[in-house]
């Protein structure tokens, strides 16, 4: 046996170790891709205004969109939809309004994270404009209307007649960003 052979084997194995460490990190973008394809986690899509309007509403069908709101631990907002639900036609562009009020006596920054169920339906729920696209700064005690413009794709499967759109508000004020 060549006395360097074990060292060569060890170096190959070390390279494998490094590659698997990288693979662990590669799972992060991979997971996002799989979520996009399958609609896992109800992540919602984005669409240009023009493309959304080009669809045109399918008035032969109606879909109920319900709105659900919650505030994550550590946040302090009063956060509600202006109306609990809307009936929409697939292909039409609609606007829903949410109302958030900062109940803290100081300025905070919020980030809303959307999710749609059923999972299958989330693939067809697209937004042209949303308060969740950017962070939302609030002055102390500020109350604000937060609009979202959306379209339910005409290709939404027949058996889905209700979608639930939920938003969770997270406190991402820089000082507390890591907590």
């Amino acid at each position: 046996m060549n006395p360097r052979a074990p060292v060569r084997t060890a170096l190959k194995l070390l390279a494998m170790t490094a590659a698997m460490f990288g693979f662990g990190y590669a799972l992060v973008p991979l997971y996002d891709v799989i979520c996009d394809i399958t609609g896992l986690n109800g992540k919602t899509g984005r669409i240009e205004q023009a493309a959304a309007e080009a669809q045109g509403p399918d008035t032969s069908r109606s879909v109920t969109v319900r709105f659900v709101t919650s505030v994550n631990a550590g946040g302090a907002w009063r956060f509600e939809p202006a109306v609990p639900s809307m009936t929409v036609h697939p292909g039409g562009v609609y606007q829903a309004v949410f109302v958030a009020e900062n109940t803290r006596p100081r300025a905070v920054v919020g980030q809303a994270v959307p999710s749609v169920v059923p999972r299958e339906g989330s693939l067809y729920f697209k937004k042209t404009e949303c308060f969740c696209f950017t962070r939302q700064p609030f002055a102390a005690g500020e109350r604000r209307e937060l609009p979202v413009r959306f379209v339910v794709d005409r290709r939404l499967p027949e058996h889905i007649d209700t979608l639930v759109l939920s938003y969770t508000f997270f406190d991402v004020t820089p000082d507390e960003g890591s907590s």
Partner: protein
Amino acid sequence: MSSTTADLLHDDHHDKPRGLKRWLFTTNHKDIGTLYLWFSLVMFFIGGTMALIIRTELFQPGLQLVDPQFFNSMTTMHALIMIFGAVMPAFVGLANWMIPMMIGAPDMALPRLNNWSFWILPFAFALLLSTLFMPGGAPAAGWTMYAPLVLQTGDAFPFLIFSIHLMGVSSVMGAINVIATILNMRAPGMTLMRMPLFVWTWLITAFLLIAVIPVLAGAVTMLLTDKYAGTAFFNPAGGGDPVLYQHIFWFFGHPEVYILILPAFGVMSQIIPTFARKPLFGYASMVYASCAIAFLSFIVWAHHMFTVGMPLSGELFFMLATMMIAVPTGVKVFNWVATMWRGSMTFETPMLFAVAFVILFTIGGFSGLMLAITPADFQYHDTYFVVAHFHYVLVPGAIFGIIAGVYYWLPKWTGRRYSEFWGKVHFWLSFVFLNVTFFPMHFVGLAGMPRRIPDYALQFAEFNMVSSIGAFGFGLAQLVFLGVVVHAVWFSKEKADAKVWEGAHGLEWTVPSPAPYHTFSTPPDPRLMTTEAHS
């Protein structure tokens, strides 16, 4: 390999230092194996003490002994210490002692690396155990360290992460050494398909370690940066997802359970033929079954997270893939039973543990099949049924495998026979109390008792009391084990001959007992290597 290359590869300790220095600087595979095994025994008792604190609190419903936070620390630490401190180092210890002797090599391929990989461990566990005294207490979010809960850990958090990193470095270095040894150091004539099964299962285990320990290291590093560096891998506010953590963790976690059990399969495949006085039935199928189990272990991880909300197709895939593992595992159990079939069996202590392994591990395998059924899992998930399941595969599986191996090879290590009577006492106490402890957990689990809680509903009181009594009995039995080992190492007068067991085959039994400090400095006669191939 010639003795000149052996000299190149490792220092020859003809004037080996004595006392502490011998153990600190040793590069001898037998010394390092001994260090690993003692370390593991110490961790086994520390982890066991934590288990007894858990069982004392659960002896009766209500909160008596400890506060809930500390209780959760105990379940978390018990698991981390038993998995990474007791079971894994014990198998690395057995590998160090036995693999070179079984393949006719003079030592491990990378002796200095070997010294490092052991001496990292005491530091890793000193870090982990020190968290018990920190503000905010020891980690209490479960050994799985799920985000975001684990991010609430107090000062202990970075110590937890760094200790996991160190354990990982140690395991990977150990695995690299095992593979480098097996692939490069086999004596002439020791072909791959002549290797004893313990060597085979360790080779596969070592590849599993290299494949998944780095993924765990990545996952905990992501936790660390999420907490301190502002990344948002698992934080939805920054675009991350806590469920992602579970996927990454269990990508490591499921192969990890085979890391804990495959070497025990190997030990069984050495012991059962010895005491059945027949060659192992289906040697080649054992090798292929082990490889199949290792491969399947990479594609079943999400069976630990059926309840997170997966697409139906995903649940079906992971359910069926998981059930497929029963096939190669069934092949193994069949082969062990077929080896015993019409053998001239005797029941010395190693064989008692081996037979109990086959029976009780199979029970644990069956409850695993129940958990694999997705719709049923929604009821069993996070209940004591899961606790019963994994203790049935880990205690009579991994732990009995280690104990059986220790009894089997102890005379070879010490040159003296252990007390067969007290060994059998140890076995029967362990066997009875193990079942008293863990069997009732199936029932309380099916009835809905959740795991990781310090208090429970009144209807679970009787079974929990039984479990707690069993746990103390089992703990006591392990003191008998300690006594047997101490006696065999320092006090026994009964000399063991080279072969030790009448039915033993393999190169390790051709060297004297105790095994000399250096064995196979010149390669053994290839005619001695007929044991496995003839089956």
